[in-house]
């Protein structure tokens, strides 16, 4: 798949809460094919201590408007700088990067499990799966009700089950405590997950034990994002592979984690 380096123009910067914001960025040229799970690498300009690009998942795209949506959490220096950008500012982007989630072999219900900013790739994935005739359900976990994302963007694809650590929204506890995982398991043909490693591991172990296929999108520290530096490795049954090329999406059975 061809990768591009392009300047995008920021159309909108929407603050969702104290930590999360959405950047809507527009390309002057038509967007190439992009698939759910893929990410972009953003150059953060003129920020002390930020030298490398920052990898961010594709949250959504609008082909007609030639825009990409990114859901970003202020995690440190680079993302805090991105949060300050205004409409009309330019961002230099390398995209689309990495592999993508795959649809299950047979039609049925699928569960998309996200934690925190790890929910970012899920709406784009849901759109893709609905298109393929799947029935989509979400299980989303956040720390508390002040740190929710725009749930409407999820609800338009399927039912949203919500968990917060302190119970201020949805059920109390982690996603693993949510009743959707308690039911005589699992009418699902495949489960997808993205979020903190500890959450993804728990989800994968639970799902695999029930003979259901699971794909996870991993986070990793990256330098190049295009397969050249070998900084972003993940240990798998096939040896050390690059998260930016062979990932970020892996069948959890292949991971040694």
């Amino acid at each position, binding site marked *: 798949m*061809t*990768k*591009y*380096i392009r300047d995008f123009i920021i159309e909108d910067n929407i603050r969702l809460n104290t930590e999360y914001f959405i950047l809507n960025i527009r390309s002057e040229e038509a967007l190439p094919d992009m698939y759910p799970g893929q990410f972009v690498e953003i*150059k953060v300009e003129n920020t*002390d*201590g*930020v*030298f*490398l*690009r920052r990898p961010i998942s594709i949250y959504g795209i609008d082909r007609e408007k030639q825009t990409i949506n990114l859901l970003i959490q202020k995690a440190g220096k680079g993302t805090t700088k991105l949060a300050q950008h205004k409409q009309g500012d330019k961002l230099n982007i*390398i995209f689309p990067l990495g592999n993508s989630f795959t649809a299950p072999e047979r039609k049925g219900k699928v569960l998309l499990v996200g934690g925190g900013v790890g929910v970012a790739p899920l709406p784009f994935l849901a759109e893709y799966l609905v298109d393929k005739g799947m029935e989509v359900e979400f299980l989303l976990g956040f720390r508390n009700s002040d740190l929710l994302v725009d749930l409407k963007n999820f609800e338009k694809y399927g039912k949203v089950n919500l968990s917060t650590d302190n119970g201020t929204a949805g059920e109390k506890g982690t996603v693993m405590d949510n009743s959707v995982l308690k039911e005589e398991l699992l009418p699902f043909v495949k489960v997808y997950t993205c979020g903190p490693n500890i959450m993804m591991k728990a989800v994968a172990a639970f799902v695999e034990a029930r003979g259901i296929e699971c794909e996870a999108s991993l986070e*990793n*520290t*990256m*330098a*190049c*994002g*295009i*397969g*050249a*530096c*070998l*900084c*972003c*490795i*993940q*240990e798998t049954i096939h*040896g*050390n592979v690059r998260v930016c090329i062979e990932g970020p999406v892996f069948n959890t059975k292949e991971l040694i984690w």
Partner: protein
Amino acid sequence: MVNTEVNIGGGLKFKNPVSTASGCFGYGYEYDDFIDVGRLGAIFVKGTTGSKREGNPYPRMAETASGMLNSVGLQNKGVDHFIKEIYPRVKDYNTHIIVNVSGSTVDEYVEVTEKLSDLEKIPAIELNISCPNVREGGMVFGTHCPSAMMVTREVRKAWKRSLIVKLSPNVTSIHEFAKAVEGEGADSISLINTLLGMAIDAKTRRPVLATVTGGLSGPAVKPVALRMVWQAYHAVKIPIIGLGGIMNATDAIEFMLAGATAIQLGTANFIDPTVSVKVIEGIEAYCREHGITDVNELTGGMISD
């Protein structure tokens, strides 16, 4: 018209002084989407060893002020895989493919070199005696002068084409090493490899890299690299390929003024995958602006009054 051709020694010429550094440009094809890699003077591919290596555990990278630390180690699938799978894919690029030869023992360096000898379209090897990220071998050869001489001597016997020896900056007197490998038959030297460094996460009180220490690269190392190129230039007669923190054409020109005949771009490729072409064009523009008709006039052209 500016003449951009430079002579690297041992019968090797680059059509322009700009090449890409080992470990920072994959095998070239990773950059095909962004640039015509055939425009480069040369591509130095990832360190290649006798057999497959998995490299070091994760995490292997830490961003630093104006640079990065890496502890990738010599992850590669081994020389046989290079010959069978990679060489056929890269041999017809309109540029030189130079293999960075790495190892833990002299025998391993020689084994890799001998196998590469059969590949017609590998005009040169770069002997990596300076990797800070392998426990044995690697940097040990590059920081102990008699060892550097021995491995250069043995590889020289096994390699008839152009031999580039890549020096470690983790030494007190770079000129001694430059002279020593010149004496053993190196056709040119490249410097610098990464500087040994480390990073600690104060929040967790733990090292950031799984290996604790790693190699520093990027603009943070540029003044050190420039100084070493200049010192080496005054110590040897063979050509010097300068690298370390070069981010743009101006940086590249500074390395040439310090004594480099050609340069390599490493970490810069991660931030801008098109940087190498910009540097080629920038050097030419500089020459035109300054009435320089041959890029070789830049080499060692620093004015000290």
